[in-house]
Structure formats: C-alpha cells, structure tokens
C-alpha cells in the first residue's frame, strides 16, 4: 500500500521468493482501486450475490447487509453489476 516503507534489494529474499505461506494477506491491493463500491446498507437485501461473485473475497458478510473490505477491494465493480437492487454505487476514488 502506498505510504508503507518498501524494502530494498538487500533486504528481500532472492529471486522474489516468498518464504512464508499466506503472505498475500499482507499485500494490500486496495490502492489499485480507481472506483470504490459504496453500499447503501438500508437498501441491501443481503442476497449475497456480490459475496459470491467478488473475485477477491472483499465482500464482508454482516448480519443483515454486506460491507466491503477496502484493504483488498480492487474496485472491479462486479458487485455493483450483479446487485439485483442496485444498492452498490461505484464512486471515483479521489486521492
């Protein structure tokens, strides 16, 4: 993520190896996003189509509606496209 201090060539494993499993969790891809899905949780019917279709597992299931994990959401917009009640709006990121 932008703002994190990145390691130099001396401090990373050779050959781009990842020496611990599951390290993708640490690699936050949220800053790739150009559009952010904004959920109108009052209108959400909790059908979970977005949760099924999200390629990054970035939809968070709550009790009565969904939320988005912005650390990993890349802003592809599939959730907004699939939402049957159109309660997800893609809003341009302003950085």
């Amino acid at each position, binding site marked *: 993520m932008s703002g994190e201090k990145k390691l130099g060539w001396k401090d990373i494993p050779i*050959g781009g190896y990842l020496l611990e499993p599951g390290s993708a969790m640490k690699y936050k891809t949220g800053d790739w996003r150009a559009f952010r899905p904004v959920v109108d949780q009052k209108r959400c019917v909790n059908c979970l189509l977005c949760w099924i279709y999200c390629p990054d597992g970035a939809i968070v299931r709550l009790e009565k509606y969904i939320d988005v994990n912005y650390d990993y959401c890349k802003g592809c917009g599939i959730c907004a496209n699939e939402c049957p009640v159109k309660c997800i709006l893609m809003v341009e990121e302003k950085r």
Partner: protein
Amino acid sequence: MAKVMGLTGNEAVAYAVKQCNVDVVAAYPITPQTIMVEVISQYIYDGEMDAEFICVESEHSAMSACIGASLAGARVFTGTASQGLALMHEMLYIASGLRCPIVMGVANRALSAPLNIHGDHSDMMGSRDCGWIQIYSENSQEAYDWTIQAFKIAEDPRVLLPVSVNIDGFILSHCVENVVVLEDEDVARFLPPRKPLITIDPTKPITVGAICLPDYYFEVKFQQVQALKEAYNVIREVNREYEKLSGRRYDFVEAYAMDDAEAAVLCLGSTAGTAKVVARELRKEGKKVGVVKPWVYRPFPEESIIKALGDVKAVAVLDRACSFGAPFHALCSDIIATLYRHGKDIKVFNCVYGLGGRDITPMEIRSIFEETLETARSGRVREYIKFIGVRE
C-alpha cells in the same frame, strides 16, 4: 600419471557431468548436442551415474523440469543447441530469475531459417541477455574443465546463477581430442554435494515464482545484476582452486602472444585455436600479433580484456553471429563499449565469419591479421564491418 582419454566435446562434457555427481538431467536431443545427453543416459542406464534422466517432449519442458529439480535442491544438468535453445528462451530467464544453479552444455549451432545444423554462435548470442553466466571453450579439454568449474561457480551462495558451457557445434562437439581427466575422487573433493540455501519442501512451504509488481520487480532484477558482479570474484577463486587441482590455469580471458603485440585478433571458442596457429606463423615473420580469447562472455570481463589488449593499436573482433541491423555485432559491441569506458583509443574493426558452419581458413585469418597491422600503422580503419568469405 594423468589419465588421458580420447573424447569429443560432447563426450568431454558428459564425462565431466558424470564426475560431478549430478542428480537430475532433463534434456531433449538436438544436433549437434545429441551425443552429450545420449552418453549421459547411457551412464545412467549402465549404473555408472546415480541420477534421474527425465525424457521430455521439448526443450521448453527440459528447462522447466531442470528449474523444478534445481529448486528442490538437486544438482542439475541439461544440454541443447540452436532451435532447442531458442525454444528454451522463456525458461532461461526463469532459471536465472529464480536463481537456479543449473549447468547447461550448448553445442553452438546456427538458427533457422534457412535450416542449418552446423556451428555458429547465433543460438547463445540470441540469448546473451538471459542472465546466465556464459563460457566459451576452445577445445574438448576446456569444455571438460569448464563444466566441472561451472557447477562450483553456479552453486556458490554469492552467485546462484545458471551457467552455460558453449562448445562449437561439430568443430568441437564431434571432434575427438585427447582430454586429460581428473580422478573421480578429486572431482568429488573439489565439488562436494550441493548445499542449497532454500529449497521447496512440503513441510516448510514457500512460494516461488509469485507475481512481483512494479513495487518489487526492479529490486529482484537488481539482485541479479549484483550476483553477476559477485560472479567475477567467484570465477577467479574457482579458477585458482581448479588450477591447484588440475595444473591447468583458467581465467576470464586468454592472451596469446600479446606481450609486445601491436595488433590482435579477438574471438570466442575454437576459432582462437586457428588464430593462434596463424599468429605463431606471423610471429616467425617478425610481425607483432597476438590473440585474445575471452573464456567468460557473461559477466563480460572488461578489466581482463583491457589488460590482455595492453598496448595494441588495432584489434579485429570476430563475431560468429549476426546482430542484424546493429551498428556492430555482439562481441564487437561489447569490446567497443569496454574500450570507450576505459578511455582506450584502440582502432577496432568487426569481422563476421563462419555463419552456418562455414569454415574460416588460416589464409582468411592471416589476411585479417594483416589488416589489423595495416590499421595499426595507418591509425585508420578501412572498413568497420567485414563479412569474411561471403560471395558477391
């Protein structure tokens, strides 16, 4: 008493591989390399060599299998030539990028089209930026000696890069020469079993070959730049240690009759042998000429080349491959860049020769030497790029 064997270049490499206690060989036969892996598979079948021979359906798969085996911690060898090396091209970069210390024998051969099976350097020169250490041999003895040294260089934790040992197709690969070989125990002492730093191991999972985006890719590539720099020191150390073992002295560059030379021919591989014979004749006629032969092409040994060229006034650089449309051909471009960087005003011209296995004769090399002497006298290059022996 040293043991002498009559071996072709291919057999010399194969014999060295046997002595190096290689664990895995994955290869696909291609002329003129075929015999190299054929002999190895025979060693394995006869129980003379305890290794896994993986028969693959292409060179792309051969190198892929080598990469997997190398990552698992095995000592790995493969061999190829020409179209096979070209088909491997993608995997060559992955082998070096994943820091796999694979050793590969290349029986250099022309590239299609038109189809040709004979020797030139187009194959390896086409892959010269693949991040491999690249060595060129003049004869079977050098092919044998460099193959043994190659494993030690490749596997050094400061390097961890693949190495190609090049032999001229047919001229070396199929020509029988006397080769002084070492005892198995001596090679085993010189080259103990590989000790990999990191291996793929199901009990301790790691990820190899993961995506690496603009934020880290550049740093990983810079590590390779540094590893090739480190290779300078390691190659020198390995050469000195091998000299103690074998009595044969290797270096980055061989300088022949260069002490007081006024002009020189610089070339790779077997052609250096012919050039030395011609230089000896010219020396008898009182002409001060010598031969410079880089053994190591990558990393490019700038300092050694500058030292070897000494005070010559003119040098002809012979390229056995064509860099179409380039201002100079591969080896000559590197020499000119080296001279520029070291502020040396040596007149250089480039001779492209021997494409598709066309012989270069002593008479042709003599006329190249004469032109270097003429260039040294006049201080003027008559023709920057010559194509030796091409018919109008």
